Every structure is written in structure tokens, then in C-alpha cells.
């Protein structure tokens, strides 16, 4: 244990303990608009590509609809059908069909954004930066509050939050703060943080095993070199595991939005 392996010898292995630095990308293009600095990085380009891919996919899927659907139409319809019949209807009943297009867009967009994590060469999910999940969570937050206010009116909607139905008056000093925090603050924060942290942790996990494998392979020790196989093997296993997590996170984000919408629409909430 006297001669420590020279980890700094190569560029890739020197990155071994991966950290926040691995989420900062080279600025490809920089410009100012209305006094705000815009920096276009790999992640921004990926974001545009995922939006474009979804627009193209769904426009081709709905174009030239037939009674017996073709392959593309079938794919589009099953995505919509899955969200409508699997999430919107079980959570909100027939009223939920109204929100199925939004939920489908949300589901597909999150799933595409997450899939960048395991698509070879790209391998960075756009949702691993907090900004994208925050925007998605804010859209859902504004939507469910707006829907609730539209349906019940400001007084009844916020009254339902401040005074939960059926609660006796003497418990309100405890219940009202909890309800306000959980409904108006914790909901958007957890929506955003859950998606972000899952993707962030997933990317970090893959980095640990790949960089770790490289670091082991570059060490002078023969035993360490042998164990790098296991590290790379774990990276592959974790890629498959991440594929599952990505789908689950998209599902969870959508179903939570549906459940919040249901809470806002319910007569007594």
C-alpha cells in the first residue's frame, strides 16, 4: 500500500469521485436578450430535440387517421390511451378526460427527457438539472389551483384548504398550517425535487460505476484491474435499472398531477 495508483495520470480517471462538476457543460453559444444572459449548452439542445421529437411524433400520429390504425397512429393512440385510461379516468372519473391531453403531453415529455440518460453518446437527462422539473411542477401547480378556483371560486377553494371538511374547530390551529404547507408549498416542491433528485442520483450512480471502472483499470494493481470488470458490469445493470426508474418517475409525476387535480375538483377537499 505504499505506492498509490496514479489516478491523475489520465483525464478520465482523474474525474473519479464524480460530483456536481459533471453536470456543468461547455457553453456552446452565449447571447443576451432583454438583459438576461442565455447560455446554450448540451442540455438546452437536448431539450429542443426532445420537444421537436414529440411534436413530430404526435403530428405524424394524428395525421391521416384511419379506422384501422397504422403503426405510428397505433403508437400515438396507445400513449394517449394509456394515460387516459390508466391515470386520468381512475383518478378523476369521466371528468378526467378533459385533462388527458395535458397529462399525456406531460408523461411523454418527461419520459423522453429522462431517456436521454441512457441513450448512448448523449447520456445526460435534461431533468437532472433542477430548472426543468421546477418549470414542469409550476405548470402543474398553477393548473390544479386554477382548476380548483374556477370550479369552486376563490373563497370556497381556499376555504376548503384552510378549514378541511369535517374537522372540529378546536383542532384547526394545528390542521390549518399543516394543510397550507402540504397543499400550497410541499406539493410543487416535492413534485420538482422528486423528479430532479431521481434523475440526478441515477446519473451520478452511472458515473460512479463507469468512472470507478476506468480508475480501477488505470491503477497499477493487477487485482484492481480485474475488479474493473465488475464495475463496468454494474454500470450496465444500473443502466437497465435506470430505464425502469425513468418510466416510473414519469408515471409518478403524471399520476400525482392527476391526483392533485382530483383533489382540487373534489366537492369536499
Amino acid at each position, binding site marked *: 500500500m505504499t505506492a498509490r495508483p496514479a489516478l491523475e495520470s489520465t483525464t478520465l480517471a482523474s474525474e473519479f469521485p464524480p460530483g*456536481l462538476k459533471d453536470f456543468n457543460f461547455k457553453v456552446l453559444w452565449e447571447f443576451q436578450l432583454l438583459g438576461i444572459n442565455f447560455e446554450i449548452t448540451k442540455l438546452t439542445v437536448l431539450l429542443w430535440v426532445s420537444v421537436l421529437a414529440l411534436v413530430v411524433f404526435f403530428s405524424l400520429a394524428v395525421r391521416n387517421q384511419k379506422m384501422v390504425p397504422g403503426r405510428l397512429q397505433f403508437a400515438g393512440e396507445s400513449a394517449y390511451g394509456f394515460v387516459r385510461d*390508466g391515470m386520468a379516468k381512475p383518478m378523476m372519473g369521466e371528468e378526467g378526460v378533459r385533462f388527458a391531453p395535458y397529462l399525456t403531453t406531460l408523461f411523454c415529455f418527461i419520459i423522453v427527457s429522462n431517456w436521454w440518460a441512457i441513450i448512448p453518446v448523449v447520456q445526460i437527462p435534461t431533468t437532472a438539472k433542477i430548472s426543468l422539473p421546477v418549470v414542469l411542477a409550476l405548470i402543474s401547480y398553477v393548473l390544479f389551483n386554477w382548476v380548483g378556483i374556477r370550479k369552486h371560486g376563490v373563497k370556497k377553494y381556499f376555504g376548503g384548504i384552510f378549514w378541511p371538511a369535517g374537522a372540529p374547530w378546536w383542532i384547526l390551529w394545528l390542521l390549518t398550517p399543516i394543510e397550507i404547507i402540504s397543499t400550497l408549498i410541499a406539493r410543487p416542491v416535492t413534485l420538482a425535487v422528486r423528479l430532479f433528485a431521481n434523475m440526478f442520483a441515477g446519473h451520478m450512480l452511472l458515473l460512479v460505476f463507469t468512472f470507478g471502472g476506468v480508475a480501477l483499470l488505470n491503477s497499477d494493481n493487477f487485482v484492481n484491474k480485474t475488479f474493473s470488470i465488475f464495475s463496468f458490469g454494474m454500470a450496465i445493470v444500473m443502466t437497465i435499472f435506470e430505464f425502469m426508474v425513468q418510466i416510473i418517475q414519469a408515471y409518478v409525476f403524471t399520476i400525482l398531477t392527476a391526483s392533485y387535480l382530483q383533489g382540487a375538483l373534489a366537492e369536499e377537499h
Partner: protein
Amino acid sequence: MTELAEINGSLSAIGYGLAAIGPGVGVGMVFAAYIKSSARQPASAKMNLPYLFLGMALIEALALFGLAMGFAYT
């Protein structure tokens, strides 16, 4: 004051380990309850699936907050 113990390395890692205990138990209980219920009543398996993921997601958020905090305070 005498020092009883000393910690070397990343304190965030230890903090995240502590933060993961509760959610770990909680997620286990959610899945155990789902398996139990769908073994007794297989017809209800599909009906309960959204609630399984809902419960899992709500509990898991706590562990993920721990993870995010670990990086925020490094």
C-alpha cells in the same frame, strides 16, 4: 470538552444514510401491503396500482430530499 468520537470523510454521506432509513422502511411497507392485498384479492391488483406508485413516490421524496440536501451543503 473531551472528544469521544471523530468522523473523517464526507458528513453528507452519513447524513444521507440516516435520511434513507425511514423512507427505506416506508417503501418496504408500501410494497409489502400491495403484495399482501393482491395475493388475497388478485382482482384488485390493477385497481391498486396507481395508489402503490402514489404511496411509494410520496415516501421516496423524503429520501430524495436527504440526497439533495447532501449535495446542497457540501
